């Protein structure tokens, strides 16, 4: 196993890209990452994507993207892990490079979600849940999160408004990210008055879907590096699984796969949670922010909302989260999301995060959640 560095990053804005196709988006982000790395060729392309088969009726995405990137005959295939597809692709690229089999790997996360009606997209997203035991009952993805959030409120005694700081923070940061889908700050009043989507989840608890792609070039850390900006190393890369269905979990309010993957990543990096400078977490729904913070050791069980209420999640505070808007404001192009998180971690570590740049950004963590928590990948990146 050899250490791995992130040499280049690229992304498109998240939005409704009416004039751009799935392949256009992947190509744009991939080429941007290669340009950023100063490379014209890669040996392997790993494409993180969840919905191309269902929404674009296009599979065999690896070959397609490699071809459109002009990288034939590079090895290429798609990596799927629902909403964690992006981080899963990064993780595969990391395994390829760290093992010594590949010297230059490109990980691309891409999703095209706005070509279809909302009913079709909702049905497609729901395939992340258990088709025979959740989906068949008319469950939606937001519905599953609502079930978890309602029980969480019941069990730990929080009020719905206690989750407002997560959304307010994400929107504040997204407002200064030109690639974010939502660039409007929100107030607590906006949050409490938002339209109910799936009780207790309202519109401002939920992240917006969107089209988008983000990419990174991974190389061995030993590769010569002669650029002025900071070199970013992958200090920890791990993923873990839990039951596919929420109802099969002994404790549906604990993200066990987040806990296990974070523990592995901490061990690889030789770090404690307290040494993480910032955290790009998977705030698809505000409840997921709380559960992720708890599972990764940043908050006690049932105490996740406290970090928001105490202001510790904001930029320049103890544990900034969603520094470029998170899923909530940057947007959640599902299979691309994990790659956006990693690209944003690299931006912070390099000092390229623009108006959202953190003063202290030496170690950053990203966590990408697939389904309602069945597959979770955690990465820790650091400045070399």
């Amino acid at each position, binding site marked *: 196993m050899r250490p791995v560095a992130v040499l280049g990053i690229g992304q498109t804005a998240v939005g409704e890209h009416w004039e751009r196709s799935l392949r256009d988006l992947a190509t744009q982000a991939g080429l941007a990452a290669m340009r950023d790395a100063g490379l014209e060729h890669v040996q392997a392309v790993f494409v993180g994507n969840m919905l191309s088969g269902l929404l674009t009726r296009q599979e065999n995405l690896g070959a397609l993207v490699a071809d459109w990137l002009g990288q034939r005959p590079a090895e290429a295939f798609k990596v799927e892990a629902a909403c964690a597809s992006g981080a899963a692709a990064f993780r595969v690229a990391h395994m390829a490079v760290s093992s010594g089999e590949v010297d230059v790997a490109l990980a691309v996360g891409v999703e095209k979600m706005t070509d279809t009606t909302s009913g079709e997209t909702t049905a497609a997203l729901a395939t992340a849940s*258990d088709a025979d035991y959740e989906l*068949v009952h*008319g469950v939606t993805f937001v519905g599953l999160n609502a*079930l978890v959030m309602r029980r969480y409120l*019941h069990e730990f005694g929080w009020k719905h408004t206690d989750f407002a700081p997560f959304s307010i923070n994400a929107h504040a940061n997204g407002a200064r990210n030109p690639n974010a889908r939502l660039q409007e700050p929100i107030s607590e009043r906006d949050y409490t008055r938002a339209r109910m989507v799936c009780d207790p989840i309202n519109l401002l608890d939920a992240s917006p879907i969107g089209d988008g792609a983000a990419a990174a070039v991974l190389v061995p850390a030993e590769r010569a590096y002669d650029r002025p900006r900071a070199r970013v190393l992958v200090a920890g890369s791990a993923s873990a699984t839990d039951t596919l269905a929420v109802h099969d979990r002994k404790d549906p309010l604990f993200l066990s796969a987040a806990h296990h993957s974070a523990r592995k990543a901490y061990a690889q990096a030789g770090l404690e949670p307290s040494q993480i400078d910032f955290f790009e977490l998977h705030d698809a729904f505000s409840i997921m922010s709380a559960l992720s913070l708890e599972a990764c050791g940043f908050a006690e069980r049932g105490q996740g909302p406290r970090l928001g209420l105490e202001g510790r999640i904001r930029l320049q505070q103890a544990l900034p989260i969603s520094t470029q808007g998170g899923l909530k404001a940057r947007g959640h192009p599902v299979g691309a999301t994990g790659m956006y998180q990693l690209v944003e971690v690299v931006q912070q570590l390099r000092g390229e995060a623009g108006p959202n740049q953190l003063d202290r950004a030496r170690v950053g963590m990203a966590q990408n959640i697939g389904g309602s928590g069945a597959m979770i990948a955690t990465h820790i990146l650091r400045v070399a």
Partner: protein
Amino acid sequence: MDIPRNWRLRTQRYALVGEECDHCHSKIFPPRDICPDCGLEAKAHYAFSGKGEIYSFTVVHDPPTGYEDQAPYAIALVKLEEGPIVTAQLTDVDSAQVAIGMPVEMVTRKLRAEGEEGVIHYGYKFRPTLARA
């Protein structure tokens, strides 16, 4: 066409038939090859009573394709009295009356029909336990 995949689950869907683990005696739903509690092989059929209580619930207003004609409908995590939690729709209830802890019982209802002319899929739902004089 979803006929075979629903057909093969008919026993568990219609009557909430799961398994009991021979090794640790856990009651298992849905039935599976490996006991989720002890990791050993499980295969003895076990018919659940259908009694349980609401562990959590919500109401779906924006349904996935194929469920539009039912919306809005309540879905719940139901904790069965034998232990497992299942996801299912609630029926015969006004959403405003649903609460965590509410006792419910299984009924077999239409889950979905494949259009006006296609096959009808049946399965378990839960309703508030019938009040009896």
